[in-house]
């Protein structure tokens, strides 16, 4: 075995393509990030770290980092919590679990760009259903009281819902106060089903005997069993789900490009969109490459955290 040179033919193409399509681009980006290169120009100048200086000093890039981080910090905790919640509920159901699982997984499968366009219609301030539904609650006393908080003595007009009823409901994607949150909402809508499935897989690996043992020790309520058994036993799944969702939400692009193009006033100017705008649309490949490298470092850190914890097989 292994006398012949046949393995060259087997691993050769893969090695060649890995070098060409995955490793070389990293070096190309690193190199170009220190130039002022543009496609179509015959040459370029080496400008050292100037692009990186811009990246960390200019206000528009500060907005970029803020947008990306805020997006990740909104989407990851909420989509992980919803995924875990859905998984716990579904796994404890007697009937209908499979159906909910399929429904919640649907957004993961569906073309995000297409669904983003549907959400845009739904969120349209004039003809959109979302504001229609919100408005329709304004003249129904029970709903109004519930959402304004006036049922426990809040001043209805000071609440978000009450004042929106008086004036008007937000232009979700066109208002810089709401745009990033709205994009994050679509991100959560899309991602939590994926987290749910990962948690469902994690839950099946929790040994049944542990629940019995906990029961013997007097952990009777569902909450106590969750706290004592489920939560700690899901340790590796938590790490995995959190890092995966962080990496995925760092890469948000489709919704931003289709719905807000980074605006209004750069409130949704996330990193991958910035990379696209600078590098491809404006042909500023130097600064685009610098964003690429910073982005790569972020993702690499997240991946290394994941590898580190998964290899140690943490159980909290």
């Amino acid at each position, binding site marked *: 075995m292994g006398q012949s040179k046949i393995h060259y033919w*087997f*691993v050769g193409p893969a*090695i060649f393509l890995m070098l060409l399509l995955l490793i070389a681009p990293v070096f190309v980006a690193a190199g170009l990030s220190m130039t002022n290169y543009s496609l179509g120009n015959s040459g370029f100048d080496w400008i050292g770290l100037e692009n990186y200086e811009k990246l960390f000093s200019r206000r528009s890039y500060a907005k970029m980092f803020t947008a990306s981080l805020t997006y990740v910090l909104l989407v990851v905790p909420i989509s992980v919590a919803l995924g875990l919640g859905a998984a716990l509920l579904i796994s404890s159901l007697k009937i209908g679990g499979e159906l909910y699982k399929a429904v919640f997984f649907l957004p993961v499968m569906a073309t995000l760009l297409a669904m983003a366009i549907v959400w845009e219609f739904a969120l349209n301030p004039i*003809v959109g259903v979302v504001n229609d539904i919100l408005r329709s609650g304004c003249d129904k006393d029970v709903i109004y009281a519930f959402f304004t908080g006036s049922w426990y003595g809040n001043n209805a007009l000071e609440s978000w819902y009450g004042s929106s009823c008086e004036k008007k409901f937000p232009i979700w994607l066109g208002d810089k106060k709401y745009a990033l949150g709205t994009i994050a909402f679509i991100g959560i809508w899309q991602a939590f089903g994926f987290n749910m499935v990962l948690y469902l897989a994690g839950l099946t690996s929790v040994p049944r005997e542990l629940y019995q043992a906990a029961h013997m020790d007097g952990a009777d309520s569902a909450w106590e069993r969750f706290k004592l058994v489920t939560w700690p036993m899901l340790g590796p799944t938590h790490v995995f789900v959190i890092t995966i969702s962080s990496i995925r939400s760092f890469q948000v692009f489709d919704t931003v490009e*289709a719905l807000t193009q980074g605006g209004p006033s750069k409130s949704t100017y996330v990193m991958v969109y910035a990379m696209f705008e600078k590098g491809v649309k404006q042909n500023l490949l130097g600064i685009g490459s610098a964003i690429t490298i910073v982005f790569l470092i972020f993702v690499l850190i997240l991946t290394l955290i994941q590898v580190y914890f998964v290899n140690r097989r943490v159980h909290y």
Partner: protein
Amino acid sequence: MYSQTNWLGEFSKHSLLLAGAIVVLLPFYLMLSYSFKSPSEIEANKGGFFGTQEIMTDNRCIKAGNPEEECLMRPIVYNYTAAFKEAPLVRYMLNGIFVTVSIFVIQVIIALPCAYALSKLRFWGRNVVFGMVIFCLLIPVHAIALPLYIMLAKVGLTNTYAALIIPWSISVFGIFLMRQFFMTVPDDLIDAARMDGMGEFSIVWQVMLPTAIPALLAFGIFSVVAHWNDYYWPRIVVTGNKDLMTPPLGLRMFKSDMDGNEYGPMMAATTVIVLPLVIIFLLAQRRFIEGITMTGMK
């Protein structure tokens, strides 16, 4: 045991999940509903799910100089014919199929022999190659899109099918997955094939390939779903040439070309693009969920 509390618990769980399901399904419901209704029904938010389907006149048809009686139609017919007339939807779909299938086939042709060599052949440098595969798993393809785009532009390949396919021809994840799978295949199977006088090439394609079908299926689902839905990469390398556009990119063009409130046709086009995958998913749910979460390991 606690039958009463259980009933209550079961009921509250179902109500929570049902509330979630309504929010999750809302855009799908709207997409279908809008694709059935007339513009006035959409604007006024009337007509329920299916609309009244009252005969309407197609203004565009009249502008084109046709007599009025030829321009009367049901909204559902209007929406779907307009979608197919105004955008080359069929072309987009065929492009999508061509690109996703080509990517998957090339990925398998490259990955399968490599995975076989990494798991079943002993040669100098095997661990180095495997280390390289693991290292490449760390590189997110989203991040290196820009340098890839520059490289393709330099060799004049932007706006070609090649640009849509080549960057995805290597799937290190596929290699890794197949290698893990082949590790579980007994060596006896391969030795027996060698005894029968089979060459290494035939072993890969006639012995290993059939045993790898379950893993390949899962990988195939992942690959096809990812590239059918991918918008980022086509958006970068295809500029303006409608003949090359994949479904998501075509839909985006449709949206920016759209004049006024053409919600109906727009949603009809969206439905046509979203529905195929959704239907296949509903038919083979379990496999899909497995296939896509497996990539979570990536």
